[in-house]
Each structure stands twice: as C-alpha cells, then as structure tokens.
C-alpha cells in the first residue's frame, strides 16, 4: 500500500503549469536550500512522510540533507521521478540525442564503470541495445537517492508520453523490470494521458501498473477529457495516484479534495504547497474526506 499523502516538489524549482510569473517568483523564494528544507520540515512535522522528488540538480542537495540527519528523517519515504528532462534538453539541442547521452553517461560514471560499460555494451552501445543505455541512465539518477528509502521510481511525464506515442513497449517493460530486479522497487509512470497510458501498459503485460496523473474536479490537464479519466479509474485495474488536484489554484481546496476522495480507486494524492497553513489545511481535508 502506498502513502495516502505524498508531498510534491514542483513549487521548489520554479515549475508552475499555469503562470511563468508565479514560477519565477517561486524560484526566487526557494533559491536557498534552507528555504526548501524548512518547508519539507513543516510537512514532515505535520505527519507527512512521503515525498515525491524530481531528479533536478537541487534534489541532490536535498538528499544530502536527508542523509546528514538520519534521525530527523527516520520514517522518510521517497517517490522519485526521473529524468528531470530540462537538464538534458539543452545538451540534446547542442550535441544531438546520442552526443548528449554519451556526455551524461561518461560524466556521471567513474573510470572503472566506463570500462565496465565497454565490456557490457561495446563502444557502439546505442546501436546494440538502447535498453542498456536506459539502465545506465537509471543507475546514474539512482545514485542521487543512495541510502534513502525509495518506494516507487517514476518515469517523468515527457519521457513517458513520448515513449507512449512511439508505442515503444520494450522501453516500458525494460524500465519496470530493471527497477524491480536491481533496486527492488516498483516502477511508476507520470503522464498527461492517463487513460491511453493505462491501456498501453496493460497491453504491455505490466500488471496493475502505478500511474500518476493530474486528476481534478475541473478536468485540467486530463487528456483527452475528464469523463475518460473517470471511466478508466472505475474500470481498469491499475494503481492511481492523483496530482494537480487543485488545478493550480482553480478549485477550492474543499471541493478539490472531496472530488478526489469520491474517486475510490485513487490510492495516493500528491500535492505541493509552500506555507504551513496550506500544508496543514490540505492534509486535514484529505484525512477528513478519506474516512
């Protein structure tokens, strides 16, 4: 069973789907690591134990902070999401897809690992086995969470949805099985196209998949539409996690939480907030409507 409430991290990194102004203001507020860990501490002290983290550059610092204070965060559970695609976007633009992959894999690996890779995949790694490349990238990103309690590792939505469009079954199967075998954790998938993805994952033979998507009363970011989402929630066998439940502030918290809790098959709710009052309010609402 997953944590009912998972604290999200988009607000720390200047990500706001609705407004570039708001995103900029958030990025300024959370410039210092302490501003981030202060909010995490408020959430933790409210009783929230589960945190979703994108593998953004700052996440490494946050994880160092967790590792440095093991008693403070004894019950911490992480739900990381990878890769943080913007990190790669500029390199891909400049060096092309293979150039960027090469650079990241080599930069993130020790000399002995590079020797290992050559043995494992040969110099023409990409041609032989793209899945090995994916494994190397997963290994690199997983280093950030070393020694911490990771429950589910999510594939970030741009990558998930790109692969969904390509109908690259092997990539989804490979990601799931590699995480299970090497890290003993389950794979999850973030998506902007939940119903289509759920159908595809079931077609791939991934049983009872973990899928995190925007789900909210207003129907925002629910593609193709809210009705198809509700149908999938009611009829398909998968583990649903809901994010963007407040639709970036478009719905009142009470209405938002009531709607989510009425969708009985939703297991976890991911929300991000920056103030003690909002964190407390949202958590209490979820608990009230869950019971």
């Amino acid at each position, binding site marked *: 069973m997953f944590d009912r409430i998972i604290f999200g991290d988009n607000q720390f990194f*200047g990500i706001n*789907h*609705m*407004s*570039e*102004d708001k*995103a900029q203001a958030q*990025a300024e507020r959370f410039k210092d690591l302490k501003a981030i860990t202060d909010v995490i501490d408020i959430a933790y002290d409210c009783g929230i134990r589960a945190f979703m983290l994108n593998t953004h550059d700052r996440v490494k610092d946050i994880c160092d902070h967790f590792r440095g204070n093991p008693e403070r965060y004894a019950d911490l559970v992480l739900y990381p999401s990878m890769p943080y695609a*913007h990190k790669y*976007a*500029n390199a*891909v*633009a*400049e*060096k*092309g*897809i*293979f150039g960027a992959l090469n650079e990241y894999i080599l930069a993130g690996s020790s000399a002995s690992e590079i020797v290992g890779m050559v043995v494992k995949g040969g110099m*023409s790694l*990409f*041609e032989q086995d*793209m899945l090995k490349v994916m494994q190397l990238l997963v290994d690199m990103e997983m280093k950030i969470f070393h020694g911490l309690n990771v429950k589910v590792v999510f594939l970030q939505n*741009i990558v998930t*949805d*790109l692969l*969904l*469009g*390509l*109908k*690259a079954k*092997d*990539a989804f199967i490979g990601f799931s099985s590699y995480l299970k075998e090497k890290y003993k954790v389950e794979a999850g998938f973030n998506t*902007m*196209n939940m119903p*289509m993805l759920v159908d595809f994952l079931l077609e791939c033979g991934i049983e009872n998949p973990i899928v995190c998507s925007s789900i909210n009363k*207003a*129907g*925002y*970011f*629910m*593609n*193709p*539409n809210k009705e198809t989402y509700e149908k999938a929630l009611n009829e398909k066998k998968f583990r649903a996690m809901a994010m963007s439940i407040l*639709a*970036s502030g*478009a719905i009142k918290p009470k209405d938002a939480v009531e709607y989510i809790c009425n969708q009985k098959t939703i297991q976890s709710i991911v929300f991000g907030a920056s103030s003690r009052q909002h964190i407390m309010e949202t958590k209490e609402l979820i608990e009230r409507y869950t019971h």
Partner: protein
Amino acid sequence: MIKAGLIGFGRMGITHFSILNTHPQVKIMAVCDQSSTMLRVLGKYVDVKTYTDYPKMLDDSDLDCVLISTPGDSHAEIVKTCLKQGLHVFVEKPFTLASVDGHAIMAELTGKSLVNQVGYVNRFNEVFMEVKQLIDAGAIGDVVNFSSEMYGATVLKDSKSSWRGKREKGGGCMIDFASHCIDLVVYLFDKPDKVVGSIMQSIYSSEVEDLVSASFIYAGGYSGNIYTNWSDETYRKPTNILKVLGTKGKIIADKHAYKIYLKESDPKRGLDQGWNTRYITDFGKTTRFYLRGNEFTNQLDYFIDCIEQKKYDNISSFSEALKTDIIMDEIVQDAARSLASDGATPGGSIIPKKSREKASMWKRIMK
C-alpha cells in the same frame, strides 16, 4: 487513412512522430534520417520502415503527406521535391534560410491543391489565439505599439561544432528564436512596412548572433519592437513575452496566461475596468494526446484535418511563413547597413563578441 512519411528524426521529428503515431486517421509509413544509428534504434523498437535517402523513401512509399524536421538549410530542396510529387507538406520552421528560396517554393506550389504548413507552433497556442481574437475584435481599441520578446538559455557557450553555431546550416538566434517572435508579429499584425534600428549581436557564439532586436513601422500609424536573446540563463525554458498597447487598453501575454488592462469595463467579455488576468487553464481545452503542450498536437491535427477536408487556406501557410523570412532578410540588411555606416565591420551584420573586448581595452587605455 492518411499515409505519412517523416524526414528528419531529431528532437522535433521524434515529437511529431509520437504525436502523429497516436492519430486515429494517420499511418506513419516511413522515416528518413541521415543518422543510421538513430534509424537502427528506431527500427528495433518501433514498427516503421526507415531510410537514409529521402528521394528513395518518396519513391518506395505511397505517401499522402510528409513532415520535414531537418535543419533549415535543407528545407527548400526537400519541400520542392515533395511538392513536385504532389504531397501535402508540413515543414518545421524556419520555412527557408533566404526569402529567394521561399519565392521559388511558392512558384512550385502555384496551381497545386496541396496543404502547406510551417511549424510556427505559437499560432496554435490557446493564449496567443485568444489574444489575436481580442485584438482583431477591437477589445483594446486601435493598436498603438507592441513588443514581441523571446528569451532562453539555449546557447551559453560558443557551439562551433553544432549546426546551431553555423549560419549556413540554419543556426543563429535569428532563425531559431527571432523567427518565432517575428511570426507572432505577422500572425497578429501582418508584415511591417519598414524595418529599422536592427541589431544582431554575438554574446558567446563566434559565427552567429545570440541577440536580435529590431523596430517595425506600419503605414497604419503604429509601431513595434522585437527583442530575442537565446543566451539569457535567467530563463529555465524558451519564453515568449508579448505586450500590445491599444487606445483602449493593453495586453501582456505569455504561453500560459495573459493580462488585459481596460480603460473601461467590457461586460460583454466579462472584463473589468483595470487589470484582468486569464490563465490558460481558464479557457484552454484538453487534447486527444498531450506531448510538450496542446499546441504541438493541435498544429498537427489541424494539418491532418486540412488534408481530409481539402482546406488549402492554412493558418500557418507557406505564404505566411515567407513573410517572416522576408522580414528576417530585411533585419540582416538593416543591421549590416548600420554597422557599415559606423565603419565598424563593413559587410558584416553581426556585432562580434570580440569588439566588446576591444572596447574595454580602449577604455583602459583612455584611463
């Protein structure tokens, strides 16, 4: 079923493939790219025929349409070849690297009933679409002045090895960024009657400009500016900012939201006197398949709809994109004239990064 072929399988090509591959009325028959490594990877994991030679792909495959996402220097030749074969064409921006090529393509297109579209994706962004409606309907009165800006952190060092750092390959801030800015201007206000005060300046790149600005003058008695900088690391991702001042109000818009200021309330549109903010979530719709933004799916679905419905007056047609190419040519000429008249760099249009070093050396000597 519409049969499609893709030429160019880089970042945009993959995005188009993914979006089109989920379209219920489209079958992607073949993909062409110069990278055989990329094609082997694609062929191994995805069910599609692959080619390294596009004429061969066109000969082998019985296609209805092509999507071209190759570097800009190859667009003119590929587009003409595809038109000759009677194919509907979607080509990524820029349309071509010089307006003379664009005119040649228009000549090839004349008399043919073929859907032609350029990937100026802002025309399919719901905020900019709504802003256009507001301006056209006179919500802010007569336009007085506008600015169209674009910022990004795409180039933060000299990228000589990449096509992005080479003008003849379609690199440079003008073609990559300013083209979007200028297209937005053409979309909203049409082509200006005069381009003045143009600046093309290098910040990091040795062979291309990293910053472009210019002023546009319209015979209708209004004016505007464009400013683009792809070497501004304060922006997490490429960002467009549009400001339009009218006789009755003002609009400030980006891809996610717009603010409108009105001197008097407009009850018909539900707008108050003073500032009103509208987020894309207030009026944007969902899409059948989302990847990187509704506008990417909307532009391709529109292209396919046009083919199915035999609609040839495209929102983002070749003739519209040619206007942007012509304006870009004018900016280059105007910037070169300004520099030549200073005697700074005769013949060139870019203020090179070296000149800043020289300037500071001069300042030191003068002290």
